[in-house]
């Protein structure tokens, strides 16, 4: 789920940059550090604008100036139990991977309804019931996120399509 959140970031500026360009440098540093980052629980997609740059405080002992920048950003945070749409990126015999934005969700065989069976046609593996529902690379699928795990910089998730209204979307 996308949110517009106000976040804070602490930036240190080396004394060689104290000058007229300091605020430009701070903004550059902010964008470089935070835009596109993945904190393990959420992804910061884009910074909308900067609310406030605090007065700098010199850090005792090192001479660096410390700024607290408050900014608004579009963040993406998945929740356990949330229903999302995604595109299938690969199919293996015990499930398939779905890309939901920057997150890769794995749907295992246990979370796939019985009717969808793993079949390989030529070189394309897929889960299909032979009639109208097929999940293969490039298909759009609606799934419910069952669990999320976050490490620094990465998120892993598992999902399920074993419920009403979930599964491949009609294109």
């Amino acid at each position, binding site marked *: 789920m996308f*949110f517009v959140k106000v976040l804070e970031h602490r930036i240190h500026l080396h004394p060689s940059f104290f000058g007229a360009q300091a605020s430009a440098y701070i903004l550059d540093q902010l964008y470089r550090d935070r835009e596109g980052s993945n904190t393990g629980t959420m*992804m910061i997609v*884009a910074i909308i604008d900067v609310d406030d740059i605090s007065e700098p405080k010199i850090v005792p002992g090192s001479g660096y100036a410390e700024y607290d920048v408050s900014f608004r950003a579009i963040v993406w945070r998945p929740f356990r139990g949330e*229903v999302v749409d995604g595109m299938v990126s690969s199919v293996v015999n015990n499930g398939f991977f779905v*890309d*939901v934005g920057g997150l890769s969700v794995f749907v295992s065989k246990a979370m796939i309804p019985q009717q969808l069976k793993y079949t390989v046609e030529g070189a394309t593996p897929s889960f299909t019931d032979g009639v109208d529902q097929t999940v293969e690379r490039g298909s759009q699928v609606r799934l419910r996120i069952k669990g999320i795990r976050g490490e620094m910089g990465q998120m892993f998730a598992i999902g399920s399509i074993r419920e009403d209204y979930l599964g491949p979307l009609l294109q």
Partner: protein
Amino acid sequence: MAGPTVPQSLSRRRPAATGDEEATNILKLGDMTDTPALSVAECKVLLEQLANKGGRGTSNSDVYTKTREYVDMFARFKDPKTVTQVDAISSGLLMKGLTHFERAQLATLCCDSPDEARTLIPSLEGKLSDEELQDVLNDISKLRDFS
């Protein structure tokens, strides 16, 4: 036992997992509670505006590129004016007790029936009557872009 005693833990403990957030029958959104949420179409419009505003140019990061592709593919409403209209329709619901999360989910998932909406968004149970929900869903479907 011979030898020096080893201290309990040599590495800095990982910050406690905030861990119990969920979006099932009850919404426990942690620090995202009360944060305005965006549906996929709204996010697409906002990202496009930010990119066009120029100035800084767009990020080259993986997260940004994948997210842009994702919203382009899955936005149910392509036109910014339509997105504003959907926003107006679904915002009326915020007065009736829905949270930001549920409102954005309704605008993203575009369900056909109240049953589907309640199954996909379990926390909606008990918040709106069938007719109210059906009305909102109908209004949103009328604006859907099938191109």
